[in-house]
């Protein structure tokens, strides 16, 4: 079976999407001639021509505005905004046009746009290149938000996102681009419907909830916890809007403890939403309050401080121990 890095798996997904549907268009800064700064669109322009895979000016708002127009005209745009931090100038188009068009047109117009967004930190990049914007997008009604954690998930979720008639914000964890996995993208996998989570590791003493790159960090933590006889379940949320509240509740009702782990700052982060959902659904099952391990409430730091900022294995294990020790007073 072939081996793929996440960037290669996404490249294959884009290639297959273009082959299967002539309406799929790929565009953004440097996606054509250069093949994308992370090589995700490598070779696609040569294969599908400059009318379907093309470079845009450095103007994120225009990229998203163009995607709206193309979607109205019947295309399936798959724009890329080169880095998470550069999507701020496009928020107006995303929140005011992309997210609302279906609602505003009373269902007449669909917005089958998949915005690919290299996201999150972990590669010691300069400022504006390591943001975690999932809560911002998940809060906007009309948008779906998804973040893959592995190459095979990257492939299947991207295919699913492009096939979706609604706009999907596709957050690619940059620090996992080089992570490799063996899988066969031509094999018809049983693909769960949008909005479902995945148990990345089963366990009984608590659930670690994560998405994107933090799934790998939680798997490391779970492996270390197992040395101490603590079996942690790792739930890869995958879809951040809609959130798989049923899957979340099933896991936590069984393990009775939960720690939510994300890279974004704590305050008003998506961890608060996940934590609230768990409390609403599993209050009587919980043996301890839901803990959150997150980035700090500061702008994303420079590369030198990144390891301190991102949730570490020790911070995760400390939160787990807090839930293990908790006694109702």
């Amino acid at each position, binding site marked *: 079976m072939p081996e793929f890095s996440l*960037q290669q798996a996404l490249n294959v997904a884009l290639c297959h999407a273009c082959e299967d549907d002539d309406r799929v268009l790929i565009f953004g800064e440097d996606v054509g001639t250069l093949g*994308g*700064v*992370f*090589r995700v669109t490598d070779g696609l322009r040569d294969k599908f021509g400059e009318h379907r895979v093309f470079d845009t000016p450095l103007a994120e708002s225009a990229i998203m505005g163009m995607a709206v127009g193309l979607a109205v005209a019947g295309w399936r745009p798959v724009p890329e905004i080169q*880095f998470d931090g550069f999507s701020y100038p496009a928020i107006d188009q995303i929140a005011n046009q992309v997210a609302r068009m279906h609602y505003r047109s009373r269902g007449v117009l669909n917005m089958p746009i998949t915005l690919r967004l290299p996201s999150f930190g*972990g*590669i*010691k*990049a*300069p400022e504006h*290149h390591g943001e975690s914007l999932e809560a911002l997008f998940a809060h906007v009604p009309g948008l779906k938000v998804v973040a893959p954690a592995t190459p095979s998930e990257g492939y299947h979720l991207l295919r699913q996102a492009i096939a979706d008639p609604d706009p999907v914000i596709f957050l690619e964890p*940059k*620090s996992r681009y*080089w*992570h490799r996995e063996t899988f066969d993208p031509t094999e018809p996998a049983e693909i769960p419907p949008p909005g479902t989570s995945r148990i990345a590791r089963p366990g009984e*003493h608590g659930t670690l909830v994560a998405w994107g790159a933090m799934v790998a960090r939680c798997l*490391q*933590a779970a492996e*270390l*916890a197992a040395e*101490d*006889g*603590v079996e942690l379940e790792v739930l890869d949320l995958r879809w951040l809007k809609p959130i798989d509240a049923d899957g979340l509740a099933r896991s936590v009702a069984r393990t009775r403890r939960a720690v939510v782990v994300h890279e974004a700052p704590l305050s008003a982060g998506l961890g608060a939403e996940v934590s609230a959902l768990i409390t609403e659904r599993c209050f009587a099952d919980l043996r301890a309050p839901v803990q959150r391990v997150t980035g700090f409430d500061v702008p994303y730091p420079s*590369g030198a401080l990144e390891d301190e900022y991102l949730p570490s*294995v*020790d911070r995760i*294990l*400390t939160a*787990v*121990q807090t839930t*293990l*020790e908790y006694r109702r007073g």
Partner: protein
Amino acid sequence: MAEVTFPLPDLGEGLISARVLEWLVAEGDWVERNAPLVELETTKSAVEIPSPQSGRVARLHVGEDEELAVGAPLVTFTVEDAGIVGTVPEERKPHRRVRLTLPED
């Protein structure tokens, strides 16, 4: 994966060549950016050059005690396709300080 070759940098005004005193890495080594790479001697001084790149050393173009001109190939690295910003994260075995204890009940 890509190969990147670095030429001997201009080490100071008027210097057109340098001699390799000692390689601090060997072919096949993994080198971090800014880690010591090579010790060079010019007519003015001996200097240690840090690695301009993280990557695996594919080729050392000159041997020790050999002279080379500024701009001539010094070392070739094999690097991951890292894009234009940032570095490829290393997959390290995680270190831990915190141990866990299951509750007794």
